[in-house]
């Protein structure tokens, strides 16, 4: 199962830092996602792109995760040589991550 089937995302930028929100469509999937989608997995997924640390923040109120990727924007939004200097397309690639489908009914 792809992450995209259960969650959506939006990507933002500040300097050389990219942040990607991952928001489950069904709030019941939040707990499972919190256990499954670790900062380490995200760092490995973006190994060619993110050259710094990945920190994960949990927003228990809105039941969503925020991944903050340091050194992920090719030297910064202004001087990056990438076509997508802001890295705005990164979130969509994260949603293509394959996850083991073990969401069960009692995942609440």
């Amino acid at each position, binding site marked *: 199962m792809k992450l995209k089937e259960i969650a*959506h995302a939006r990507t*933002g930028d500040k300097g050389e830092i990219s942040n990607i929100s991952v928001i489950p469509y069904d709030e019941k999937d939040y707990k499972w996602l919190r256990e499954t989608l670790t900062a380490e997995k995200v760092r490995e997924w973006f190994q060619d792109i993110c050259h710094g640390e990945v920190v994960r923040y949990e*927003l228990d109120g809105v039941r969503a995760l925020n991944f*903050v990727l340091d050194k992920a924007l090719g030297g910064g939004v202004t*001087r990056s040589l*990438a076509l997508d200097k802001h890295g705005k397309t990164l979130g969509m690639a994260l949603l293509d991550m394959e996850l083991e489908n073990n969401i069960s009914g009692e995942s609440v």
Partner: protein
Amino acid sequence: MKKIRIGSGAGYAGDRIEPAVELIEKGNLDYIIFECLAERTVAAGQQDKESDAAKGYNQLLEYRMERILPLVKKNHVRVITNMGAANPKAAAEVTLETAGRLGVSGLKIAYVLGDDISDCLEKYQDCTVLEKGVRLSELGESLISANVYMDAGGIIEALEEGADIVITGRVSDPALTVGPLVFEFGWNVEEHPEQMGQAVLAGHLLECAGQVTGGYYADPGYKEVPDLERLGFPLIEIDESGVFTISKVEGSGGIVCVDTCKEQLIYEIHNPKAYMTPDAVADFSGVIFTQVGENLVRAEHATSHGRPETWKVSVGYKDCYIGEGEISYGGSNCMARAELAADILKKRIKLTDICLEECRIDYIGYNSLYKDTLTRKLQASEPLELRLHMAGRTKDRQTAERLACEVEALYTNGPAGGGGVVKRVSEVLSVCSIFIPRDEVTQKVKYLEVLL
């Protein structure tokens, strides 16, 4: 109970005007904000101002004011905007002239100064540059601007003095919303931490305009959004409790739902417990959104933890040049021909001594967004067409031009069937940050008036 309605008329410098007009006409607003400054905008504005002292403000200012001034006057909506960019005074004068030309009288226009500290950078030479870890003095001659992200203080003062239009340069984006709320309800971080958290949340949700009403959200088959061609911009309604609803005017396109609000809540924040703004350190970790009607979402449970003692200064400097070129290859074996082209380019750079700080070659339509590891994982087959894109960073314009020309030369000197070359050279202005004590920044508010 007093309720205040604030609309968002722009989320970036060049945003659409119709949604702002629609909000002023039908939104029953008290205020409308226009957020028009990205990280680099003020530095670019400073350069405009250097070549023409009457410029340096938002390029759409006059166009926007022409469209909205008669309406805000008629409907008693006060306007707060950072369209002053590098020159709030000139922006206020243009607004005054525009009002005069349109016969809109009885307007008090305020402009807020104090963010531009480029004249007193001497005393901050030893400050550490956040992004580079070096001292400011090491940027040397290349500095072109220095602007403080100020709090809502100047906006509040202008509203207290009865201003109808408030034009700022660099203030924090949420300050455009925090300003009118503090003016209306008298909140402060010590006594009203929850309300100040809610005020920053409101500002954060409004500042990108259409991004909370269904813009930047649609993904056909997953997330549907109706009528994006006439996307409605957001408005909030808030009372003294700080709890607010977010909506758009009836009949406009787009959608306001819990998920659009969640996406925008987390947009461009890092630690949700400490979202730093000069007015308050906001905490969004406990925020709850509830759908309370069609296109109507309630937002509550933001709070704040004091306010920072230092303010961020965005320092603009001349950084480098980028030379770029693109060429397309198509049909069977296009990947092999594009790779041959890339190989030729790399050898030409060596052969002709083009000195580059960094160089990058991508294939648009294949790996330009996600590089090789992810591309190989997610896309097995070769596409029918590819567009080679090469970009290199140089110290001077001439070298950047030479690099771009190497791509063009692939027409007659490269692999078979290349087409559609474009080349471009750009000067890069970059920004970096230092932090200075908040009490070293003095905001000044000045006024122009269109008399009755």
